[in-house]
């Protein structure tokens, strides 16, 4: 029995739609989510997820590689990123592309971005990036945009389409306000509203950004000040999936037609909200580390509007 075995009965979708904040929980080893008719269903743990036959679009999410971090929580972040990419290369079905939800580097050094690129490129997949706050701390704040900003708007937001799914990459780590959370800003929100205008409500939407767009734990800054504005624009769409990083742990929530999901880091784990004095890197026993790092793969099957998220730890 898993914590994710909520009863999203397909026979009575209205019941599921009424439930709010019901699926906020932490993952053990992995879970498969699918969406039918806009209603998310928890189908089971990773074994049954792997049994599902991906016939549509499959893409991957990696996050928070923090290349340059060398503290006790993981002195070898290059090694664990290499392990994550090794898992991707070994997948039986080659994914269509990869998204990286930010904090590629730890200190925005050119050498850190170089190392990350060298390793991630070995997956031989297109990678769609959004920045984390650690990617914008070089003195001139230019390296991220030089390397990853081509074809993007503002500080790096953009959208694209793949297999009938509309993908939106947002930036919520710029121009942060004292005492506040993540921030999208008026310019980006106006662009988002325009990007969605006139789009068919049956188009499945995947939004990805670094900091969670929903309020996970404001005491630690885990949320986005104006994230609710962005979610307002997504109301009415039948299938919305929001993918984030930043908090270095798997967390999921279902609210109406929106499934929220955060991915593990490939570098180091962070504590569950309130479980430690601060959200800083969590040192665990060496043999436990790889169970807390990992990647996510997301499967979209056209026709039946099924979208599944499978979290896979590096080990265990």
């Amino acid at each position, binding site marked *: 029995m898993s914590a994710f075995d909520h009863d999203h009965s397909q026979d009575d979708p209205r019941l599921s739609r009424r439930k709010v904040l019901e699926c906020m929980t932490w993952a053990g080893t992995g879970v498969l989510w699918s969406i039918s008719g806009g209603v998310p269903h928890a189908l089971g743990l990773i074994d049954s997820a792997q049994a599902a036959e991906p016939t549509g679009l499959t893409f991957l999410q990696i996050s928070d590689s923090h290349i340059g971090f060398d503290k006790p929580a993981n002195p070898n972040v290059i090694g664990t990123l290499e392990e994550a990419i090794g898992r991707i290369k070994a997948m039986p079905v080659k994914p269509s592309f990869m998204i990286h939800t930010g904090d590629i580097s730890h200190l925005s050094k050119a050498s850190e971005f170089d190392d990350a690129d060298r390793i991630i490129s070995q997956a031989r997949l297109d990678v769609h990036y959004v920045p984390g706050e650690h990617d914008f701390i070089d003195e001139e704040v230019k390296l991220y945009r030089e390397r990853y900003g081509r074809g993007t708007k503002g500080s790096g937001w953009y959208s694209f389409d793949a297999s009938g799914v509309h993908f939106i990459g947002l930036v919520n780590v710029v121009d942060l306000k*004292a005492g506040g959370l993540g921030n999208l800003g008026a310019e980006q929100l106006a662009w988002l509203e325009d990007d969605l205008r006139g789009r068919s409500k049956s188009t499945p939407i995947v939004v990805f950004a670094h900091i969670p767009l929903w309020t996970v734990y404001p005491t630690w800054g885990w949320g986005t000040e104006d994230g609710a504005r962005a979610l307002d624009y997504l109301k009415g769409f039948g299938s919305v999936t929001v993918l984030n990083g930043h908090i270095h742990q798997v967390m999921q929530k279902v609210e109406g037609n929106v499934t929220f999901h955060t991915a593990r880091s490939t570098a180091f784990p962070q504590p569950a909200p309130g479980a430690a004095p601060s959200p800083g890197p969590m040192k665990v026993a060496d043999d436990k580390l790889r169970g807390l790092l990992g990647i996510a793969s997301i499967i979209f099957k056209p026709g039946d509007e099924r979208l599944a998220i499978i979290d896979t730890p590096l080990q265990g």
Partner: protein
Amino acid sequence: MTSVALRNICIRVAVLAVMTACMTAARCEDLAVMIDNFTFEPAQLTIKVGTTVTWKNRDDIPHAVVSAGKFRSKTLDTDDSYSFTFTSPGDYAYFCSLHPHMTGMIKVE
């Protein structure tokens, strides 16, 4: 005398002026704010004009110290420090530009 030497003398005179102002003020001293567990400690400091405050990051994660329009540190990695000398009275609210829920206040009298 070269312009560099002249400038150095000017800087020394300026530093001396600040130090003199500091010495004439009662209990003027340099103070430290530690960054531990994503908090500034102490979160509020009341100081005299001329005091230098030094922030030191003791977390495993980088932080930055920013007071809008007043002062701004580089990103401070673990064990990095940043110092600022307060030459005008007033309230200086500041925060970490990477983790904006981290806030602090320097009151300069």
